[in-house]
């Protein structure tokens, strides 16, 4: 009986020792020499593996940083400046402060603004619908609302508002990794600087059609009228392919462009509401209308422009234009 116990203990111990020795030599033989700083840098990264830096994951990013010995064009959008500064001090490098960015959805084609003209029936994939047809509203550039962006987001930062049918970006969660920008087949989402006090002004439309056809499908489309371009005192707005774009670097957030937009396509984020001036008729002056959002703390608003058909045109320069637009607007409703 004792023999058995002793034999068993001895043979198992011998086995263990033998295995340890083999393992030791194997480990020596196949040792990978790695810069210890890679591990250290990796520690400082958030570990989200989102790919927002342009590398496959945090580890690859860390390797690249250590290898390049430079932080130029290297940025981790998730960790932000804090992480980058820590990495810089660890490696004794310089780092430029990056603008804080956020994903912005440049479409306001909600169920109300861009009513359904055909029903789409198929898999919940924007990309598929995009390849199949122009979309249920008929706008060839508008949001399809099937949530490819939501699917792509690793940070719980973008959601489809089911009452509006378009996505909303969470101010808090978005790290500007750019996954949704990639995922959107219609290039509606773009990364823009978060702005001072999180305030931003942007054209919420990417439709490149001419005014009439664009307006036919969506009441808040950019119709390429150019009023905002003329209004902007800082030359921050450019018009290309019937579409206005606000350059965030030039924009001084003066809020002059939004009230002149006849369709309300320019949206303002996180500004205080304009107050109607006393003594003035309310219909004379644009009044801010807040868009009700569900999944974000962002306050989105647009100045509602009084209908020109109901009263004398406030601006004399383009009476014909406005009349035409109101006509196409009605035509759109009938169709």
């Amino acid at each position, binding site marked *: 009986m004792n023999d058995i116990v002793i034999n068993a203990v001895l043979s198992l111990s011998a086995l263990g020792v033998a295995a340890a020795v083999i393992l030791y030599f194997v480990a020596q033989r196949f040792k990978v020499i790695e810069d210890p700083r890679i591990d250290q840098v990796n520690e400082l990264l958030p570990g989200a593996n989102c790919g927002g830096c342009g590398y496959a994951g945090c580890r690859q990013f860390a390797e690249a940083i250590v290898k390049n010995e430079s932080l130029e064009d290297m940025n981790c959008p998730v960790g932000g400046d804090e992480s980058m500064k820590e990495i810089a001090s660890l490696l004794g490098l310089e780092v430029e402060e990056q603008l804080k960015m956020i994903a912005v959805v440049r479409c306001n084609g909600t169920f109300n603004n861009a009513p359904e003209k*055909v029903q789409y029936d198929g898999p919940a994939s924007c990309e598929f619908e995009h390849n199949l047809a122009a979309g249920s509203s008929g706008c060839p550039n508008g949001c399809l609302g099937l949530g490819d962006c939501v699917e792509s987001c690793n940070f719980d930062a973008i959601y489809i508002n089911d009452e509006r049918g378009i996505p909303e970006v969470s101010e808090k969660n978005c790290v500007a990794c750019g996954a949704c920008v990639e995922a959107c087949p219609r290039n509606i989402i773009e990364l823009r600087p978060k702005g001072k006090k999180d305030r931003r002004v942007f054209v919420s439309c990417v439709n490149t059609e001419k005014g009439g056809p664009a307006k036919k499908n969506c009441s808040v489309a950019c119709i390429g009228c150019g009023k905002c371009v003329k209004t902007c005192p800082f030359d921050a707005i450019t018009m290309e392919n019937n579409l206005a774009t606000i350059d965030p670097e030039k924009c001084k957030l003066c809020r002059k462009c939004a009230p002149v937009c006849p369709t309300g396509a320019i949206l303002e984020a996180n500004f205080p509401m304009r107050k109607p001036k006393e003594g003035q008729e309310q219909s004379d002056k644009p009044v801010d209308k807040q868009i009700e959002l569900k999944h974000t703390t962002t306050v989105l608003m647009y100045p509602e422009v009084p209908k020109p058909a109901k009263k004398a045109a406030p601006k004399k320069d383009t009476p014909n234009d406005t009349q035409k637009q109101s006509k196409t607007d009605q035509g759109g409703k009938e169709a």
Partner: protein
Amino acid sequence: MNLFTVSGSPHVHEDRSVRNLMLGVVLAMVPAILVSVYFFGLGAIRVILISVAACLLFEYLIQKYVMKTGPTINDGSAIVTGVLLAFNVPSNLPIWILIIGAFVSIGIAKMSFGGIGKNVFNPALVGRVFLLISFPVQMTSWPKPQPITAGFVTDTVTGPTPLGILKEGLDAGKTVSQIEPELPSYVEALIGNHGGSLGEMSAIALVLGAIYMLARRIISWHIPTAYLGSVLIFSGIFWMIDPTHYVDPLFHLVTGGLMLGVFYMATDYTSTPMSAKGMLVFGAGAGLLTMIIRFWGAYPEGVSFAILIMNAFTPLINRAFKPKRFGEDVKNG
């Protein structure tokens, strides 16, 4: 006026749904149900109804309270599982055992894998094998068939199955010709007048249902043909070598759960291969395993185990036996 619908092609769909297919299977089992009622009376009805009801209930409860997904009990797959489980047990099985079987079938073999379409093993067979191992006595006391005269209680006289008689005899050192008088005749076996589980009684009734399923293209011919073929060939070879110890192939065809297994359980969609080649391999393998268990295994019957073992190989078979691609390795003469 309706809004136009826009969707990808095709714009027409075959008039067939999962529910439609499952109810087709149930319909195909009606002849076998009738035969079992004829031989076992109300006891058979009791077992079938309770089994179906328990399967449906478990599927519903698990889906509602555990998985919290949309209900799939409307698709009829639980009914098929219920009837098949009932077919695989003796008609006098105590109700509580039957309910445990239904729980194992639905709860463990089907829902814990994720529900319909995701189970690896045939749920009814898992339930049956579980019961066979856990309750060997109750599961192997088959009541003697008593055409219609029997009342509600049928467990008065019990007797072994033909395969049981054969196995016992051979183990006792007898030859086939010595055992033969105790065995039912082929006619009896075809009609179903012998001991056995509820649904495996009548080969004719089962084949009748199978023809219906084949005609409606609910099942394809591949698995049954390969299965029956390999059983015939394998048992035939041994019968020709040594007829004193191996009974003739026809006997193997008509007895035990072979017909039931071949047409109703080896053709289960989810747990069997998808390509024609894979199905043939699956059938042949199951046939071979059935005969190996029947000849040399501890159990007289091997269909359930054979199918379950082949179920485990299904993913591998799917990977190894791809359908013949069009335009691959072409030899144009």
